[in-house]
């Protein structure tokens, strides 16, 4: 796999959820997709592995998976066909947020982890069990031999997430997609899981896509960041570009609305007026224009192209000058 080129449009009951999303993930790199609820970040992940809900579909665009110079167009494959199944699980691993509903409560966890091994690799049951126990040990699950035969409810949230990671990585996939894997966990456990994921990525030169709403988390793990708003990628670049010198007004607002641990308490948090519109009522122009302090009339009239700045830093905003700086705000910022 060299680059994954994702560009597609999904329409579920006439709701345009993803709008011309293009993303490239170089092999061995760590991409984070960030945004608030409803921005389409999870849908993006589901579209890649063709696990969209039944009412969703990819209308146009290409999802290509590169492997030793050869591109496979994932969205042309049959959803539950043999070829697609050989990608899901074997070459692309998935980790979801809600571990309790992703694991089958009636089956022992060891068996659930071994399942994909037996499916994708020609192993005997005993060999599979050995591999699972070995991976459990590597992932810091204490007493792996006994835990192999335990049921999901006997695990804590953090341990269940480790089991999920085991399922996603047991076949040593090249690409791992993690959708909010730590959102339901406490911070100390989140730190443990993130360290684990980062190690998994580095040690095997794996490609990771992490979906999250937590900007600070992104800064600790990612190489590249894509910021999404209402179905569009509004900014893409390296961690330094996007988080340390954000260009898009939305990215800037998002970053400034979260207090840092050393925030100056005499300064009010920046807020974004209004709320995210529903995808049903989106205008033809910039999705963020209604809430943007910099918006001009042109912003609301036409589709905004992605502009590229130094070092392949892409921003979807026409109010930036050649150097990528925003003008003085037209409207005065309000605090509440």
């Amino acid at each position, binding site marked *: 796999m060299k680059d994954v080129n994702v560009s597609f449009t999904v329409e579920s009951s006439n709701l345009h959820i993803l709008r011309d999303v293009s993303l490239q993930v170089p092999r061995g790199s760590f991409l984070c997709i960030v945004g608030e609820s409803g921005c389409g970040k999870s849908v993006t992940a589901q579209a890649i592995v063709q696990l969209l809900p039944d009412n969703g579909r990819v209308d146009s665009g290409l999802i290509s998976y590169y492997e030793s110079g050869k591109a496979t167009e994932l969205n042309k494959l049959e959803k539950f066909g043999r070829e697609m199944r050989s990608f899901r699980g074997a070459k692309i691993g998935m980790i979801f947020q809600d571990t309790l509903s992703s694991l089958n409560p009636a089956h022992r966890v060891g068996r659930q982890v071994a399942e994909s091994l037996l499916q994708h690799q020609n192993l005997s049951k005993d060999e599979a069990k050995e591999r699972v126990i070995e991976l459990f040990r590597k992932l810091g699950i204490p007493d792996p031999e006994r835990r192999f035969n335990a049921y999901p409810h006997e695990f804590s949230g953090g341990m269940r997430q480790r089991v999920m990671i085991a399922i996603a990585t047991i076949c040593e996939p090249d690409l791992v997609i993690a959708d909010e894997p730590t959102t339901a966990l*406490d911070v*100390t456990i989140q*730190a443990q899981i993130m360290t684990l994921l980062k190690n998994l990525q580095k040690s095997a030169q794996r490609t990771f896509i992490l979906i999250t709403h937590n900007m600070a988390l992104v800064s600790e793990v990612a190489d590249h960041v894509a910021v999404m708003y209402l179905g569009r990628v509004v900014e893409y670049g390296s961690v330094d570009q996007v988080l340390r010198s954000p260009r898009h007004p939305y990215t800037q607002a998002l970053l400034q609305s979260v207090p840092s641990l*050393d925030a100056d308490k005499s300064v*009010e*948090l920046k*807020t974004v007026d209004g709320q995210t519109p529903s995808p049903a009522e989106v205008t033809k122009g910039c999705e963020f224009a209604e809430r943007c302090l910099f918006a001009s009339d042109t912003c609301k009239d036409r589709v905004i192209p992605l502009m590229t700045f130094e070092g392949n830093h892409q921003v979807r905003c026409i109010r930036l000058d050649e150097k990528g700086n925003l003008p003085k705000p037209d409207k005065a910022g309000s*605090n*509440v």
Partner: protein
Amino acid sequence: MSREIALTEPLYQAKGIKKYFPVTGGVLRRKIGEVKALDGVDLDIYRGETISVIGESGCGKTTLGRMLAVLQKPTGGELSFDFGDGLKNVVGLNRTEELAFRRRVQMIFQDPYTSFNPRQRVGAAIDEVLQVHGMKDPEERFSRIKESCEMVNMRVEYLQRYPHEFSGGQRQRLAIARCLAIKPELIIADEIVSALDVSIQAQIINLLRQIQRETGLSFVFITHDVAVARYVGHRIAVMYLGSVVEILPAGALPQNAEHPYTIALLSAVPDMNLQGKKKEIVLQGEVPSPIDAPSGCAFSTRCPYVMDICKIARPVLRLAYDTDPSHQVACHLEKPPIGA
């Protein structure tokens, strides 16, 4: 929020609060053990301050909030509130006294979807609170409601609507307005911004800080988000497994924390500005179950600085080594960990 808080006479004092929930088992549902949700918590709340209570899930911060609001009775300990003539016990009050207490102490919950009756217009929901507290004149009630709506930036016309017509952030504003309408002295806010997206969360946080500045009322702000707790609160109480392990002025975070758990919690919080600058304690393992909590210090099973005494004797809150009188730590260590 630069105002100095007079740390002399508390508005509300919790002393040795314990809350045990029975664990039952077997066909006869006999009691087979106890969950020690709170195991001796001391907390003073002063007039005009916001105290943030932080901790991970299961540490007892929500239970503490419910105790302070006397929604449940504590198993042990004392809760006393200053009604204007000194601290007075508030557990087991008669109906009139309880009403007087509830008028002064209000609670806001995490989930704005369930804290309003879906079949009642929000205006009526706020009005009901005022009626319960004996405001008979409808015009007076309406002007109170109007006033509190203005404080949270909600249009008065919205009062005719039903809860489902609002977004999460708006509903949380209404919940705040409902509290403010009866002019309480203390508001207990339990994870009120946790369910909101960050841009909306920032609106509510700014609003709370503004209300606090303008009205000077006291807040207990319960949250799992350390950065938000520090930003909103004057003081921070850090909880672990049913006890308060450290109380410190918000400005002392992140650098001057002294309890190993507080430092560990801070180092687990991802933060862009502080990468590589924080003191690091990386915790192994998970929080033990409060059913079989360790004897001695609750944190002793995961503490990298654990000593023999920690497993036997429970540390009590004492002054911190940085000699700030409002900084207290419950730890046996004889000097702060990692050279503070």
